[in-house]
């Protein structure tokens, strides 16, 4: 007992062993400890990732089981839109529909933040978020709060956004071959053909789901090409403004031809058009014609043709523009040359490969999702 000062006692060994066992136990728990420390951040990243995947790779889901949630009107959105997805189709991940994107930022249909938490963020927690898209470096759209300074979950996706198609029809390409008192120009949209010829939804022209536009340009060309009429002053063409000829747009209406059905007009009877780049639409009628100097534009928004009773996927649509050559000297409509589908077989088809049609183009876009 006198020489025990340098020995380790049994007591110390027991204590040290307990410590070591505990230490090893703690050490094995370390990865789990860090999960606790960073758990929320990992969760935010996962939610941001999931939201990014839903937006870019899923076309969305509505209550009837299809993915055309973007056509549902404001009042029915809360009940009937189940999931907001932007993809054109599940076969085309990363190719987004501009119509779906625009619809999802529509504040009359979706309330912030509940609608988004319910239909795209998901999860039990009321996550805060910011979703933003920059298309082609110019068009910025976003919804959500300003991102916090601290940590938040994040994902960035690179996508392409399908733009609408449109057509630019120069008057000189569709002039009547002879003089005529009636000038009806009827561009045709053959929906069956459009859907059949290009079946990849990323490139398809689909008037029933996407906006379409018809622009008739170079109308002033009509003024200088009236060989039978006296619109020239000593052989020199009068300036358009002083000429006694006015090209008037008398009516615009739309007719539909379905298989084994007669041609019928589809409402509205008399349609809004934009004249000479003006920003206010006008409705030309026989009783209130509008004078056209250079161009006429008509825009059909994405829901127009799909509306109940208007068209089916087997319809042929004719957009009928009725022009008149108004002689201000004697206040009558003259016979002459004008843009015309019936005199000269100038049928214009809104179709793939037409030199006057701009087919849908995919534009690059960046999508960022932040969740906290």
């Amino acid at each position, binding site marked *: *007992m*006198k020489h*025990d*000062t340098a020995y380790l*006692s049994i*007591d*110390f060994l*027991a*204590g*040290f062993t*307990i*410590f070591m066992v*505990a*230490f090893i136990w*703690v050490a094995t728990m*370390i*990865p789990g*400890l*860090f999960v*606790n*420390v*960073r758990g929320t951040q*990992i969760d935010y*990243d996962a939610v941001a*990732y999931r939201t*990014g995947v839903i937006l870019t790779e899923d076309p969305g889901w509505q209550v009837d089981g299809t993915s055309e949630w973007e056509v549902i009107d404001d009042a029915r959105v809360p009940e009937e839109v189940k999931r907001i997805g932007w993809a054109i189709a599940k076969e085309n*991940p*990363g*190719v987004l529909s501009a119509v779906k994107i625009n619809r999802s930022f529509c504040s009359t249909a979706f309330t912030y933040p509940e609608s988004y938490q319910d239909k795209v963020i998901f999860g039990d927690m009321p996550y805060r978020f910011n979703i*933003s*898209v*920059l298309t082609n*470096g110019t068009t*910025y759209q*976003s919804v959500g709060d300003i991102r916090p300074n601290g940590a938040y979950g*994040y*994902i*960035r*996706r*690179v*996508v*392409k956004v399908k733009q609408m198609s449109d057509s630019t029809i120069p008057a000189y390409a569709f002039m009547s071959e002879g003089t005529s008192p009636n000038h009806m120009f009827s561009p045709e949209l053959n929906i069956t053909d459009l859907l059949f010829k*290009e079946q*990849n939804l*990323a*490139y*398809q022209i689909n008037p029933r789901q996407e906006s379409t536009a018809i622009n008739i340009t170079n109308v002033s060309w009509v003024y200088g090409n009236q060989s039978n009429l006296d619109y020239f002053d000593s052989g020199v063409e009068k300036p358009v403004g002083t000429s006694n000829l006015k090209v008037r747009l008398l009516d615009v209406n739309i007719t539909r031809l379905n298989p084994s059905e007669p041609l019928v007009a589809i409402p509205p009877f008399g349609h809004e058009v934009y004249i000479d780049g003006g920003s206010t639409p006008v409705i030309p009628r026989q009783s209130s014609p509008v004078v056209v100097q250079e161009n006429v534009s008509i825009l059909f928004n994405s829901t127009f043709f799909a509306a109940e009773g208007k068209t089916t996927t087997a319809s042929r649509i004719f957009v009928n523009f009725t022009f008149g050559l108004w002689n201000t000297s004697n206040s009558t409509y003259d016979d002459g040359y004008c843009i015309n589908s019936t005199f000269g077989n100038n049928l214009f088809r809104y179709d*793939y490969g037409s030199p006057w049609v701009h*087919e*849908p*183009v*995919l*534009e*690059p876009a*960046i*999508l*960022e999702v932040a969740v906290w």
Partner: protein
Amino acid sequence: MVDHAAGQLYTIEGIAAALIMLVTAWIVLGTTTMYTPGDTHISDMQLEQLGSDVLAMMDTPNTSLENRAQTSDLQKFIKNNYSAVSSPPGDYHKGPELFNTMFLSYANGLTNGRADHLQYAATVYYRNATTPTGSYEFSRTRNITPGDHAVRVTRWVLIDNTITSGPTDYKSLTPAGTAILDRRWQEVLVEVLIWRG
């Protein structure tokens, strides 16, 4: 016994010490945020997703016409990489240059209009009648250094190398001017290393 007790630890003291050390360790671990190697998979995943998005979108044709001809931007860039003649017309020989511009604009783009700072190095792997497997460096922002933590993304790209004449015949050459791909449709593997720098 009492005289010689100096320097000895008793059981109760050992347990107390153990508890104190445990509590200390627990507090230290609980109050600091440590970034363990296991967590890097999140930022790696983000970078991989971005890189694979960029390659996928570069390989997505922009129009119906391009889709029917099976010519995406990425296909054109790889096909038209170097010119056999010294000053060819058009952009046919500028594949790597155009790839660089487009890759950076896609990968570094932020929705607020600013730019991220990602670096990349792209390599093309191929095989032809004479080379079982070969590769050449296609385009890069700078060399990767040991400190850079890169992720790797790849994409198989289908190249139409059947056209034997005309202005598009500037394609698939090494910088030295030797032909790389055979005269046929073939797939090459594009590998891109991406890192923050």
